[in-house]
């Protein structure tokens, strides 16, 4: 899949690797770390030399003397029960004298800003903390090269910032070369834009060859259009350059004018939504499963399902334990929300704030710790699509729970562009395809409301746009949709209304524009608004205008057309 790739990285150099999904970024990293061809069978021609050693002939373990690796998934990046042990383990393996180990642990934790984590158990760490400990473990052996494989893609805004700062701090002395692959480079670069990225950049084309290699500041603008078309997430000034054909980013008056022109005038016709399909009244949410007897009594949709033989909503409240909390730890309380047919609502907040538990409670999978949930049984799309797979092929997957030979199966397969994959095993699809299947398998049941947990996590831009389109179609035919997401851009593109969760309750409920303008509120909820969106929300008055701009930028991805600058003015 990857061919003709030749490059050298000098000691202390910092490199970012760009490329569309499937171009072979991960394969390239795996070849450097020795996982390919030692653990994964693959055909490799040519040579890879890491710190003077032939990586193709050297065992992964031997390479570990020169390499530090930070993988994607925080859960498997840290292997031992305690933080100290995790770090000492690396030094023990290299036969470092025990007397030096403690000081080196302190030193490396100070670099990644995690000094106070030293005595913690690894099971109690948050995602961002885990990744910083894993980074410390990658650094403590003083490697020559640090390989970062999408280190922040599973984290929220706080975690991302912590890990990025830790990586920067580790690279600052110039003793270690850094090779970064990151998916959401728009978020990783943050407010510094392309200047926040490593100084050298290598671009892989869709065909698996290196198309550009040089200083990030000069390569990115050159490669911008190709990368943008191919569906890469780019820092905002690069994206705007590719989409609008205008350089300089958001501070440039020309760019601003072009964006305002895309926004157009007016807020469009006010959206009209249908009846309430799902409602929570004075709801308290806990992550813990209720004691069994209570759960049976409180199954929120029991009565709705009994009353509704035709699958249509029959609304009836269920007194939920008189507001008692049954000794469960309550994450959120006093939640009042209504979801109407055709409406898309997004829930924002930190990891661990209770967003996922709220969805589980609304879906009837967790009993409310207080209050009531009313409405017909919703569908819920989980964060990891594999958790939901029940079939051996995509077709079986969609057909789960439907009568044999239902015409709906084929309709949904074609509707979601899954026709060519119908006979494939869902586990063997790409990340984006898996998401598509799990979403389609939920929508096929035509339940009145759909809940989704981080539906765009880890997707490239093309898949994200496809997901947005699928949600819009579902809303148009009358589904009420509630999703929680860290992807503010997708939220701004989709959501009619935004709820912000912080400090154990809902602290804001309003349109994207209203909510994202409240800086202090966002800071409290740990939400970082990407630069482009921040600018749009500040300058535009209506959600419809923000959406028009984002949609216009999205349309330049697939076709690769630039909006002619003259017309945009």
């Amino acid at each position, binding site marked *: 899949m990857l061919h003709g790739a030749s490059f050298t990285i000098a000691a202390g150099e910092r490199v970012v690797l760009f490329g569309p999904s499937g171009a072979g970024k991960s394969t390239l990293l795996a070849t450097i770390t020795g996982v390919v061809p030692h653990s994964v069978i693959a055909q490799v021609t040519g040579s890879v030399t890491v710190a003077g050693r032939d990586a193709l002939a050297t065992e992964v*373990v*031997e390479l570990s003397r020169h390499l530090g690796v930070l993988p994607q998934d925080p859960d498997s990046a840290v292997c*031992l029960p*305690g933080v100290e042990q995790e770090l000492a383990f*690396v030094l023990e393996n*290299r036969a470092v004298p025990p007397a030096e180990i403690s000081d080196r642990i302190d030193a490396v934790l100070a670099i990644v800003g995690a000094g106070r984590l030293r005595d913690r158990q690894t099971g109690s760490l948050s995602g961002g903390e885990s990744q910083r400990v894993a980074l410390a473990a990658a650094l403590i052996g003083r490697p020559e090269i640090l390989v970062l494989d999408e280190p922040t893609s599973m984290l929220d805004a706080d975690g991302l910032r912590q890990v990025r700062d830790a990586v920067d701090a580790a690279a600052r002395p110039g003793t270690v070369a850094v090779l970064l692959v990151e998916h959401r480079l728009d978020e990783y670069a943050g407010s510094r834009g392309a200047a926040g990225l490593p100084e050298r950049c290598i671009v892989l084309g869709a065909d698996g060859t290196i198309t550009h290699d040089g200083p990030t500041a000069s390569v990115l603008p050159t490669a911008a259009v190709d990368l943008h078309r191919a569906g890469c997430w780019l820092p905002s000034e690069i994206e705007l350059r590719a989409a609008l054909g205008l350089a300089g980013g958001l501070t440039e008056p020309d760019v601003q004018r072009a964006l305002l022109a895309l926004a157009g005038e007016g807020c469009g016709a006010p959206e009209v939504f249908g009846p309430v399909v799902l409602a929570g009244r004075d709801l308290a949410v806990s992550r813990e499963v209720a004691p069994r007897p209570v759960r049976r009594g409180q199954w929120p949709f029991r009565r709705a399902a009994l009353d509704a033989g035709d699958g249509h909503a029959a609304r009836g409240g269920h007194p939920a334990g008189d507001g008692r909390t049954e000794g469960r730890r309550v994450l959120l309380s006093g939640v009042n929300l209504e979801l109407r047919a055709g409406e898309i609502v997004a829930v924002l907040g930190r990891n661990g704030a209770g967003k996922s538990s709220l969805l589980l409670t609304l879906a009837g999978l967790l009993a409310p710790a207080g209050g009531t949930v009313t409405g017909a049984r919703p569908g819920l799309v989980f964060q990891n699509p594999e958790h939901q*797979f029940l079939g051996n092929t995509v077709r079986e997957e969609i057909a789960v729970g439907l009568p044999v030979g239902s015409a709906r199966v084929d309709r949904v397969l074609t509707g979601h562009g899954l026709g060519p994959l119908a006979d494939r095993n869902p586990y063997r699809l790409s990340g984006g395809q898996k998401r598509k299947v799990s979403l389609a398998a939920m929508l096929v049941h035509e339940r009145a409301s759909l809940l989704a947990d981080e539906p765009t996590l880890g997707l490239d831009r093309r898949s994200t746009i496809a997901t947005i389109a699928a949600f819009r179609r579902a809303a148009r035919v009358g589904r009420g949709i509630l999703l929680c997401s860290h992807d503010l851009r997708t939220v701004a593109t989709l959501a009619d209304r935004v709820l912000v969760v912080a400090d154990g309750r809902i602290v804001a409920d309003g349109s994207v524009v209203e909510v994202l303008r409240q800086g202090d509120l966002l800071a409290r909820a740990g939400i970082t608004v990407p630069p482009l969106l921040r600018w749009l929300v500040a300058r535009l008055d209506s959600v419809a205008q923000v959406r028009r701009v984002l949609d216009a930028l999205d349309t330049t991805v697939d076709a690769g057309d630039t909006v002619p600058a003259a017309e945009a003015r």
Partner: protein
Amino acid sequence: MNASSALGAVAPSRLARRNPTVKLAILFIVSLALLFVFDPATPALLYLLGLAAVLGFARIPLRTLVLAHLPFVGFALGILVVNALSRPGEVLVDLPPIRVTVEGLQVGSALALRTMAIGILSIGFIGTTDPVALMTSLHQHARLSARVTFAVLAGYRMLQQLPREWQVIRQAQSVRAPLRSDGATRFGIREFGRAAFTLLVVSLRRGERMSQSLESRGLGLGARTVWRPVPLGPADWLLFAGTLGVLALVITGVGTLGLGIGPGVLF
């Protein structure tokens, strides 16, 4: 360092300070010796001595101690009932279809008390032993290779995540399941199998990633140092010798009193 065991945090206690390999060896030897004992008196005495030792030297919270007993009590009762009802011999109670024999009661109670004796020692061992210290000690003192001990530790961490993972998978799959007429979802053998399959797939992947992480941290590079060696001192040898002495004393004591029964009772 905060030590924690499978039963919660390890409180500093005399037993917690002892070498894990020595404790494991004691547990193993006592269990082995009990395999050849078929009278109720020996295991009963050993259980009481073990309980006294755990209460006196292990500082395991009483509630934890009681809860940890439950699986052993359940298993012991099962053994007792099965033996009492099914073993041929002199009939004690005959209320068809229930027929209890003297031999059955005797062997059953011996086996049940054996379970309890091994149980209390296991609780004492698990409740006072940090798994990391155990693995370090097995590497140091029992010559177990570092590859094995650290793979076990990584597995232990995965094990901690399993219940949560299982819950998520069950939730993820039951939201798709058709509702029965009472509004609940079915959870039968098929559903269980499907969830177990998913758990297997997800865990295998995670295991693979973890083993890559362990390798990239340099596990298996060759000679390694041990940062915090687990001490093995005179007190550990004293514990070892003392416990085995008590064991020998109990077995010979019971034998002298004429209460000892060997495996011959089975034939």
